[in-house]
């Protein structure tokens, strides 16, 4: 069965974890970068705790663990410019989008649901 629905974008990668504490954020970003390198149109959605990935001034972790901030700074090179943040995730941490290291679009729940419908594939990390 073929899906004839038109999607605005190919892949939505949902990032729900902050840097350093686990490999979820890094491995989710890896999937996004690979898809973009293969010419897919990719959006990133930072949800919940994942909003912390966008904090400026991050440093290396224990044993020199690299973290993910450098990868996020490279997103433009991969043509990943659709950076979405869950409004609730921001307010939960007492942050606003101005506090973040990259320019993002903040989404309320109805807008979130629309984003899910616009992508051909959704991967949650």
């Amino acid at each position, binding site marked *: *069965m*073929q*899906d004839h629905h038109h999607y605005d974008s*190919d*892949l939505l990668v949902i990032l729900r974890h902050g840097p350093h504490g686990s*490999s*979820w954020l890094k*491995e989710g970003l*890896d*999937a996004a970068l*690979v*898809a973009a*390198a*293969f010419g*897919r149109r990719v959006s990133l959605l930072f949800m919940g705790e994942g909003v912390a990935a966008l904090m400026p001034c991050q440093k290396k972790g224990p044993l020199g663990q690299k973290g993910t901030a450098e990868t996020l700074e490279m997103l433009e090179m991969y043509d990943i410019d659709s950076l979405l943040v869950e409004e609730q995730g921001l307010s939960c941490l007492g942050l606003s989008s101005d506090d973040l290291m990259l320019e993002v679009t903040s989404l309320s729940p109805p807008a979130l649901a629309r984003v899910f419908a616009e992508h*051909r*594939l959704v*991967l*949650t*990390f």
Partner: protein
Amino acid sequence: MRYAILLMGTPYSDQASHSALRFAHALVARGHCLEAVFFYHDGVHNAARLAAPPQDEPHLVDAWAGLANEHRVALQVCIAAALRRGLLDEREAARHGKDGVSVQAPFELTGLGQLVDLGMRCDRLVTFGP
């Protein structure tokens, strides 16, 4: 329909592997084509050749291999996630100067591009997380 499964849970620590296998068997029993199971994050441990569970527990590694052989399902393991966690096939073991092989056939190490490709090509991709 053409299906793919993405599995990111560790065998025996989470129910994810059991749930994914149960779903996989239901899919093929219903006549769907399960093209591949992609193992990412801690899901790569499902390919562990040296897993030795007690006899009264399901042997998940063998169960995946059985599914693959019986229904021509590809078992694709993210190579980057696998190497970090000590899962190497013959080629990678040789390349890294290791004297053991820890990935069970027919699991195959492959790139993340395969996951993206599966997600785009298949009608449905179902994720099982921890």
